């Protein structure tokens, strides 16, 4: 016993020494952190004696099982990336909003695409009617992508793109735009969502059936492992699962089960786990139940580290670290008394920060009514700036770690998740569970229960089922230019008459034969976009070869 104690103690000393060394290289924001009363703020709160139980459950930040965070200094070293999801209307308009947000101190971009782009239709497709530029920016070809990223230095700014079924196409466009800026694909950094399983489960922007979809994903893994080393090739997303009405435990469980499916698929194609696992990222929801949310994020890290180590034998620390983006819960925003949403967002964002998020999107108060106005988008960004700069919660690592309640909740969520994973394993894994509609049913049940609780008043939603106002003021809302679709179609028609049509057809046929075979499709798609093939044309070829998913 005595020697064991000493071992843990020496492990701790080692960690301290390593951390000091790291700080020499990457200094913390301040020499010393103090409270208003002049009390020193420790980098890490911890028990006097570290025992086996502590080391197994919590460990040290930056070390397995990463419960307390993936870096030893966390936000004392660097604040999370403030990444506001934005995009609407035309590429030019969105480019203006991006530059506005960067001027306001945002540190990363996050692109919202309109639904036709996300589902692989051009703006002039019959299916695109009414949807062009509505929930995001309309991108038909490289032309639009160039306008979207004009004057944004792609070697400095990292960009997250919420794109799934056609992720390869948009990533290819990003690579080519960077190339035109003189930035090589080795230098660019960012994330594509690229998580098709949760599209079948909860979000709905699928195109192809699961099997070819998984191939597109693993093609991206393989291509990026070799040529785009700083790109996060997938953002395995619980966000939408939660928005669809799941519980926190289900959000975690289904996301991690999907993660397992992607790792399995990549290994099956012959990739080595340590070659692609460091580029897997996650995306969670920051919801209402503050303490459970904090515990959820901490549990997520521990569970993933265990799975990667024990199930897959991953060796690299980066393969074991669950890095995640958080967006606060859009579904908790009320259309009634929208100013109250600022307060909801603050609490949810604080949970994400206390849970150790790597990047954060805070919602705007008017999102239950429309896309945010410039004013409401700014308040949303300010909310996280206030947490980062004024609240002081960033001065110490994992401040809630060691709380009896939080640790207990973290353990219980972990147990829930492993139960679900066993069940899903028994069904043959996440892909087959999705095909059987298992997750969809579980989520629907939970969401209906919540609705009933809200309607009975058991769950209070301030301003909506209690503390209502008789006369709701009507706020100013953001409007999309109703002429946009017409303008976008004109632009597309011009492109179709000015580009080299022979090259376009040749590229598309190369893609078709690639799709029939087994070669990696990424280089073929890059060639297509370089010659101005459109999103709709590329996805059209793939639709013909792969078929379409039609739901269950």
């Amino acid at each position, binding site marked *: 016993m005595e020697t064991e104690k000493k071992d843990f103690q020496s492990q701790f000393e080692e960690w301290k020494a390593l951390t000091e060394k790291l700080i020499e290289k990457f200094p913390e924001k301040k020499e010393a952190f103090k409270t208003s009363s002049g009390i020193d703020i420790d980098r890490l709160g911890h028990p006097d004696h570290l025992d086996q139980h502590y080391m197994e459950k919590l460990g040290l930040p930056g070390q397995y099982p990463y419960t307390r965070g993936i870096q030893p200094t966390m936000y004392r070293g660097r604040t999370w990336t403030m990444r506001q999801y934005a995009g609407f209307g035309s590429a030019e308009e969105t480019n203006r909003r991006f530059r506005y947000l960067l001027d306001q101190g945002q540190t990363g971009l996050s692109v919202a695409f309109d*639904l036709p782009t996300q*589902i692989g239709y051009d703006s002039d497709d019959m299916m695109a009617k*009414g949807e062009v530029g*509505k929930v995001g920016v309309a991108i038909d070809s490289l032309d639009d992508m160039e306008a979207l990223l004009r004057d944004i230095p792609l070697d400095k700014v990292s960009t997250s793109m919420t794109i799934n079924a056609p992720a390869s196409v948009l990533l290819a466009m990003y690579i080519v735009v960077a190339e035109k800026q003189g930035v090589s694909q080795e230098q660019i950094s960012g994330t594509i969502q690229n998580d098709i399983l949760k*599209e079948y489960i909860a979000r709905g922007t699928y195109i192809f059936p699961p099997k070819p979809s998984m191939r597109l994903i693993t093609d991206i893994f393989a291509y990026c492992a070799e040529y785009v080393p700083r790109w996060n090739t997938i953002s395995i997303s619980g966000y939408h699962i939660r928005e669809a009405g799941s519980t926190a435990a289900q959000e975690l469980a289904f996301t991690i089960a999907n993660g397992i499916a992607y790792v399995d698929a990549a290994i099956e194609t012959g990739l080595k786990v340590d070659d692609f696992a460091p580029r897997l990222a996650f995306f969670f929801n920051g919801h209402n139940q503050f303490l459970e949310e904090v515990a959820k994020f901490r549990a997520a890290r521990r569970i993933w580290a265990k799975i990667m180590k024990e199930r897959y034998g991953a060796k690299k620390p980066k393969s074991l670290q669950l890095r995640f983006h958080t967006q606060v819960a859009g579904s908790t925003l009320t259309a009634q008394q929208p100013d109250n949403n600022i307060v909801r967002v603050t609490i949810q964002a604080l949970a994400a920060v206390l849970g150790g998020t790597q990047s954060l999107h805070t919602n705007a108060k008017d999102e239950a009514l*429309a896309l945010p106005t410039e004013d409401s988008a700014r308040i949303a960004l300010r909310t996280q700036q206030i947490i980062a700069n004024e609240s002081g919660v960033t001065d110490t690592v994992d401040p809630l770690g060691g709380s009896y309640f939080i640790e207990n909740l973290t353990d219980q969520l972990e147990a829930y998740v492993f139960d679900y994973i066993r069940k899903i394993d028994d069904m043959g894994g996440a892909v087959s569970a999705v095909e059987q509609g298992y997750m969809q049913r579980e989520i629907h049940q939970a969401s209906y229960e919540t609705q009933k609780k809200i309607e009975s008043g058991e769950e209070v939603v301030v301003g909506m089922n209690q503390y209502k106002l008789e006369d709701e003021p009507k706020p100013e809302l953001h409007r999309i230019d*109703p002429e946009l679709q017409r303008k976008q179609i004109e632009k597309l028609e011009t492109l179709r008459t000015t580009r080299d049509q022979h090259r376009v057809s040749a590229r598309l046929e190369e893609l078709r034969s690639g799709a029939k075979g087994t070669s990696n499709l990424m280089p073929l798609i890059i060639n297509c976009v370089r010659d101005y093939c459109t999103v709709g044309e590329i996805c059209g070829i793939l639709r013909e070869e792969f078929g379409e998913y*039609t739901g269950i």
Partner: protein
Amino acid sequence: MKKIRVLIAKPGLDGHDRGALVIAQALRDYGMEVIYTGLRQTPQQIVTAAIQEDVDAIGLSCLSGAHNELFPEIVSLLEQRNAGDIIVVGGGVIPWEDIPFLESKGIQKVFTPGTPTKDTAVFIEKAVYERDGIDQSIKEPPKKIDHIGIAVSSLEEALPFYVNQLHLKLEAIEEVVSEGVKVAFMKIGESRIELLEPIGESSPIASFINKRGEGIHHIALADDRIEDRLRELSENGVKLIHETPVKGAGGANIAFLHPKSARGVLYELCDKPSKEAE
């Protein structure tokens, strides 16, 4: 009576179907037959499905902002195909300023976020019955005696009789400031005794006691169709104190009938939120 049939549809490319699924289930639980189209339906597909399935109403859900284009197109296609009698309602993320436009295009009602699902069900039911000329009068009596209200000068003095002598269990004491009363509830069978103590001289209970002394003040009838019943009573010449329901203790919707129409008895209709329902 034939069950009302509703098609819940997702026009456009929007994949958010939490609301559509919840509404579909809630309408089913209300007793309707519901068909859900699934995602990504064109207006033509929706109209074809509605006609084939012979539905009474279509509920459209759209959260992507395409409602102004897609909803009216569905209504006009229905008309073109001689199915203009199908009632169309909608919901989703719909800015308030778009609602008058949609209503002018024949969408009968737009339900914005936060609408209780039952309101939607009741709206569709009424609209269908009105269209079909079905008599909507209520044939059912109220569900039960919810409680008997007894005016007392002091809860403290009155309670021991109920608690110690009758062995009733005191559930809660609540002040309803707007009504000028402090209320004690005790459960008895499926009903309750409700003791009412006046707060201040302006309280209606104070004037009741001054005029008539302590004693039975009102009888409350549980009713889950208050609005319909009030309308019907009023049409039949029954005098009402409240023409539409107001909020009472415990978040219930309540309305009083005038004692002149009930031989001197003050009746209350009350509909409590379902967690209170036993």
